[in-house]
């Protein structure tokens, strides 16, 4: 189907691992802008935008909107009426833009203006709650029909949520005054990932570690997240590469 192809459904998963590896390797804040452009191309959407606000008010952002739109947004003070910001600030559930309240005159005028500047009519935003009250927002934006967008977001929601958080984890590393914090795994997570790396089945790992399979599932999910991985195979590769596990 054309819409799906344009939105990159078929090709996404394999390529995304590569983007995440490159994200992992980013060395400075300056590396994030080209990365967000690559992610946009990988997802096949018009725009991706990332923005964070620390508890002390410090901000950082990058994204693919037209700089003229960003300038206009700031000049007009749109932050106060943008339904996406109003609907996401200090929250933590992912949301399709159609769920926001666009009914006010100001919101409708804002959206018309945004579209003039190349912002698409569809959006999906992932608000992120990080450590110490950090708040960030990761948004995908595109122009397509409601049906195409629904297909895309339903199909990719899990990946979108994870990529949003991994992007945030990386951005946090570059926060002034905060050195790179290598992902560390607890001894139990190291045990679990090591046994998986050497080919044990989940049942065998659980049995060996004397834990239930549910407990193991949580350890693996937690380790995967800390390693910025989409799946267990990728997580094992990451853990090996970083020397967190040795087999």
């Amino acid at each position, binding site marked *: 189907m054309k819409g799906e192809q344009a939105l990159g459904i078929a090709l996404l998963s394999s390529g995304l691992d590569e983007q995440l590896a490159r994200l992992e390797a980013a060395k400075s804040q300056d590396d994030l802008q080209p990365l967000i452009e690559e992610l946009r191309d990988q997802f096949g959407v018009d725009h991706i935008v990332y923005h964070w606000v620390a508890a002390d008010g410090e901000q950082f952002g990058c994204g693919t909107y037209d700089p003229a739109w960003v300038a206009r947004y700031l000049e007009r003070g749109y932050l106060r009426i943008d339904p996406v910001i109003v609907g996401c600030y200090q*929250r*933590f559930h992912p949301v399709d833009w159609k769920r926001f309240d666009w009914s006010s005159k100001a919101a409708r005028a804002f959206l018309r203006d945004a579209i003039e500047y190349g912002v698409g009519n569809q959006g999906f935003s992932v608000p992120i*709650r990080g450590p110490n009250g950090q708040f960030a927002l990761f948004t995908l934006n595109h122009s397509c029909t409601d049906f195409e967008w629904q297909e895309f977001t339903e199909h990719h929601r899990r990946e979108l949520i994870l990529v949003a958080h991994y992007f945030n984890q990386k951005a946090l590393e570059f926060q002034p005054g905060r050195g790179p914090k290598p992902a560390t795994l607890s001894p139990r997570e190291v045990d679990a990932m090591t046994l998986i790396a050497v080919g044990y089945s989940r049942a065998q790992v659980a049995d060996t570690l004397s834990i239930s399979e549910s407990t193991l599932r*949580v350890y693996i*999910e937690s380790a995967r997240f800390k390693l910025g991985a989409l799946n267990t195979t990728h997580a094992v590769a990451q853990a090996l590469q970083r020397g967190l596990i040795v087999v």
Partner: protein
Amino acid sequence: MIRYLYASELARHPGLARTMFRDRADQFRTRLGWEVELDASGEERDAYDAMNPLYVIWERADGSHGGSMRLMPTTGDTMINDHFGHLTGGVRIESALIWECTRFCLARDTDPGAAAALMLAGGEVMQGFGVEHFVGVFDARMVRIYNRIGAAPEVLGSEGEGRARISVGLWSFSPEARARVAASAGIDPVQSRAWFEAAFGPVGARIAAVAA
């Protein structure tokens, strides 16, 4: 009915909020004997209530609180990671796909089905927001209630004996569990879905109309 309210939205529901924090005091301090702090007006709040959690609340016909639970993402500060790491094998449970569920509370004389309604709402959150698991700390005496409504957690770790036993549990929500809990709550899944949609904004065509 079920309400989904961030802490920042509670001010618009003062009666509901007041009775929730009082019922929490009654459950956790008076009945369970936990060392929780009460404020001057007898309401129980902790540091996590100040971090804008999402409350899932069973509101009774008279507008008062009948039961509730408190949800937080495990990517931020959580009770389990801050205080109960020794019950999870020292593993810091942290994932965008796992949320923490704490302060599961029922009013003394609540409606039958309130507990199941809350669990059903938990399922809506999972399905609606791509959450794969809830983790939570709970008292031994809650196990009976969870079992009765068909939403027993998998226990990751426990400490203490008898009345003082505290566990960290994990909830998943299969379609079968969902059907079981819906039956136990006596709530039509369509109704449950409608409460969720009402709280988080129906998917409307308004944006499309502007864009056209």
